[in-house]
């Protein structure tokens, strides 16, 4: 799974950091999303999917995902 973020869309609601703090953080300067780890392992993948689903600005894109893995 590869995680992509679109900072231009981000509204800093913090859902991603709440759900998957291993992968997402917020920039100290503007509160917008930053990626800690673009390659989420299998154990974190469900949380990354949840973050993408909950993001109110749809600023998270997952590529190469195989939910069965």
């Amino acid at each position, binding site marked *: 799974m590869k995680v992509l973020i679109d900072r231009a869309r981000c*509204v*800093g*609601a*913090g859902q991603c*950091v*709440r*759900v998957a*703090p291993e992968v997402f*953080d*917020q*920039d*100290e*300067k*503007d*509160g*917008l999303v930053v990626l800690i780890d673009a390659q989420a392992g299998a154990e974190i993948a469900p949380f990354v999917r*949840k973050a993408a*689903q*909950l993001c*109110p*600005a*749809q600023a998270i894109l997952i590529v190469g995902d195989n939910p069965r893995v």
Partner: protein
Amino acid sequence: MQIAPESHAPKLPFARTCPFDPPPQYAVARALGPLLAVTLWNGKRAWVVMRHAEIRAILMDERRFSGRMGHPDFPSVTAARVAVDRNERAFVGMDNPLHDRYRRFFTREFSVRRMQALIPQMQVLADGLIDELLAEGPPADLVATLAVKYPSLVMAELFGSPYADHLFIIGCAVARHGLTQSTAEAETKARELAAYVRRLIDSKEENPADDMLSRVIALHVKPGDLSRDDLAEIGAMILRAGHDTTTNMIGMGSLLLMRDAVLRARLTAEPKLIEAAVEEFLRFVAPVQFSPRRVALEDVEIAGVTVKKGEGLFMSLPSANRDERLFACPDRIDIERDTSQHLTFGYGIHQCLGQMLARYELQVMIAAILKRLPSLRLAVPLEEIRFKDDMQIYGVHNLPVTW
């Protein structure tokens, strides 16, 4: 699908028949379709969107639906609300790109880490209020003693508004969030609160402190990105939102706890479940009744119904959170369920900026009540509780308790 003629569309708002559930019309209509035609106070037709999926889709569709409160067709549940909407200058009433430009001056202030860092202070404040309550002895009104004071104390620390002013701030919030106030009263209180924050800005410029207002002034007002007047309007919005919604959740959450001995025993034994309980309370209560709202910018067909250009839509978050398509037995409190998609904080670009603040405030207060007031119970029958059927933000006006 048949659409009721305009004159037959029921008048918004509807009355509740059970204080813990949304008006029954929502569940009935939700079974038939995602939209319900309603008549507003001015005789105009509008729509209530009741299902989760359609609400999410509309709130993401910035091209066809506008959230600009100054739009001449922007729908309001009361005449008084029209007046304050028209003068709304904070980003809550803006579409993009303007919305993001202004919201981003504040996003760092509400980041998850920053809110987490406030938890120890929240614990001290919650404990302090419970100390006062215990010292005065039962009975007491939990709304006046805990629910109102606690978010005010937190906002005083975070935002920089003196705690001594909290009743004035709450008065301004209530004047906007009522269903019965006059237009003049709503307008006057909106102006007074913005003028209050404008004076606060002057005083923070002279004596900066470690608070949100001082930081935003230093980072964005001084360099000229944000005007003092715009900051005053946004600050007023943040103060209203920070006081009124959390207060109502604490009142309702405490009441739900007092009515469910099994849940209370479980949370007391396993405090790590409090986070899930708070999310379920948020889903179940959904205090904001008549927002978010949108105007259709073109004719849009939704599930066989045509919403005409210029028609208004109310997203019913209480109804979305009871949508059977997503939540099984939605009228039951169940802290085991997956609550993650509840829409209590809205969705789309306007999703609540203070949601993490609200979550932590609620978790801390519920934990403090469970620990320090283990025998808390209602001091009057439920019939004597005055529920906020007269407000756009639901909750309880009073909560007489003993212990």
